[in-house]
């Protein structure tokens, strides 16, 4: 409850800030539509030559594209801006102000910047997802929907923890933006089913840079092709990464305050 109030306060501040740059709305609209257009065109080209992609039917891949936009929107909405600002504030020292506040500093740095225009990606993602489901003509049971939402949440937690771990590296190495750029391009790989990729890359995208959990796994849950082992694995992975990222954060703070030196 108190975290919701805090989030609400930061959200209001972000809205006030963004409203001053209305042009960004149109830039984001253009960017989102362009990105979606490219994805859909890619699908059209691929499925004019093949019936399935890595074992996925066209409308299933379309659902995946929807999830890709949805999760990408969440990353762009709150995770990425917060983490970028964390790195920046470690460098210029404004993190000091966060640390002197009587609230959990990790929570504050994680939610303090919201790029509201990225909601567009979320809306587009939901739209594509809905279209895909209609075309699949499949009945979505309560259980399946719950699985989907659960996997989506697990995916979001995994991605958040992963970003936080990367961003906390800035406590040791001052310039780490490049790592974030690498992650961003790895995430692009999540538009396609990971089963499409050769074994080593599939492992990499699942366990090293856990993109698969954010996109492929929720899409699998929705299209009813997910085994309980994977589901359990995703939840376990989310919990483990959440704990690990907290450990990284605390170690980073100890480093920042010189307690470990």
């Amino acid at each position: 409850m108190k975290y919701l109030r805090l989030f609400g306060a930061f959200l209001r501040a972000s809205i006030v800030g963004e409203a001053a740059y209305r042009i960004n709305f149109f830039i984001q609209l253009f960017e989102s539509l362009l990105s979606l257009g490219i994805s859909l065109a890619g699908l059209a080209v691929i499925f004019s030559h093949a019936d399935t992609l890595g074992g996925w039917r066209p409308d299933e891949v379309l659902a995946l594209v929807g999830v890709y936009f949805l999760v990408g929107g969440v990353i762009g909405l709150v995770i990425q801006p917060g983490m970028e600002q964390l790195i920046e504030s470690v460098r210029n020292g404004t993190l000091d102000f966060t640390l002197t506040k009587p609230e959990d500093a990790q929570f504050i740095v994680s939610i303090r910047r919201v790029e509201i225009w990225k909601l567009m990606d979320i809306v587009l993602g939901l739209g594509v997802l809905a279209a895909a489901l209609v075309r699949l003509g499949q009945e979505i049971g309560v259980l399946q929907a719950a699985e989907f939402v659960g996997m989506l949440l697990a995916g979001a937690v995994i991605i958040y923890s992963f970003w936080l771990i990367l961003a906390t590296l800035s406590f040791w190495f001052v310039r780490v933006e490049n790592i974030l750029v690498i992650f961003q391009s790895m995430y692009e790989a999540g538009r396609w089913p990971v089963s499409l990729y050769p074994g080593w890359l599939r492992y990499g995208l699942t366990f090293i840079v856990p993109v698969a959990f954010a996109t492929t796994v929720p899409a699998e849950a929705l299209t009813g092709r997910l085994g309980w082992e994977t589901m359990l694995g995703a939840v376990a992975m989310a919990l483990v990464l959440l704990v690990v990222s907290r450990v990284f954060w605390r170690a980073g703070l100890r480093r920042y305050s010189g307690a470990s030196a």
Partner: protein
Amino acid sequence: MTPPVVHIRDLRKVYVVSQQQAGARAALQGLIHRRKVEVPAVDGISFDVAAGEIVGFLGPNGAGKTTTLKILSGLLHPTSGEATVLGYAPWKRERSFLRQMTLVMGQRNQLIWDIPAINSFELNRVIYRIPVEDYRRTVAELTDLLDLGPLLHKPVRNLSLGERMKCEIAAALLHRPKVVFLDEPTIGLDVTMQRRIRSFIADYKRRFEATILLTSHYMTDVETLSRRVVVIHHGRLLFDGDLSILVRKFTSHKTIVVQLGDCQADLSSYGDVVSCEDGRTTLRVPKAETAHVTERLLADLPVIDLLVEDPPIEEVIERVFAQGAQ
């Protein structure tokens, strides 16, 4: 007797810094192997600050002032020694401690650049869980004291440095902290704005009975705000006590200004002639001889006016630092 609000004993903070050599080749070598050097920023200082006291914390750049303030506000972990604020160990950053203190840094901003200050205030209201009634009253009071009225609704990026600083200070005081750490709050501001902020700090202290530790480059800040000063240099304590004692202790000379008709007379036999303008000669004489020289001047010359002064406080501080460096 109430315990001191700030208590420091034998405080040390050593930074481990990796040294970078000049030149590209050395820089490349540095990628593989870095030489680590220990730099003591604070090297065994002790002092206490009582409740409701304002203490001026002086020292040249790199003396360890900011490091000390950061330890006291919980940002840095001391290497050794004791430090408590309101009875808390600051680096544990307990919420009940953080709620009662604030840190203002003249060189850094906590206000969000793109939004009006009032929106950043609102954020602090939620973070500090200030009841709406109290918040409104405090904002009104601070607006009144600092003349914030026209500033609060403009985006912070459109404010001047001085206007921004006023808003920064107000934002840091919304929760009415009992302990206030001010690190160079007047840096870069013009004289009028400096005065404004100084009188505000004095008002705040009176109204809220706050304990204030203030660092500054500007001696006037310290002179007008605090009677007690703590001087550190190279991480060590040089002086802790009344400002007037500091001046007395470290001044071996006085300044005598003699008003004569013109600058013709040679006064070098009375003391060092510092300058002469419009018949006003400034002499520097050893403190012990002041009375004697004054007497001679009055007896020998057609003196229109005569003034005996302590040297400016900047000069005194310079001497303190020069002695500390030895």
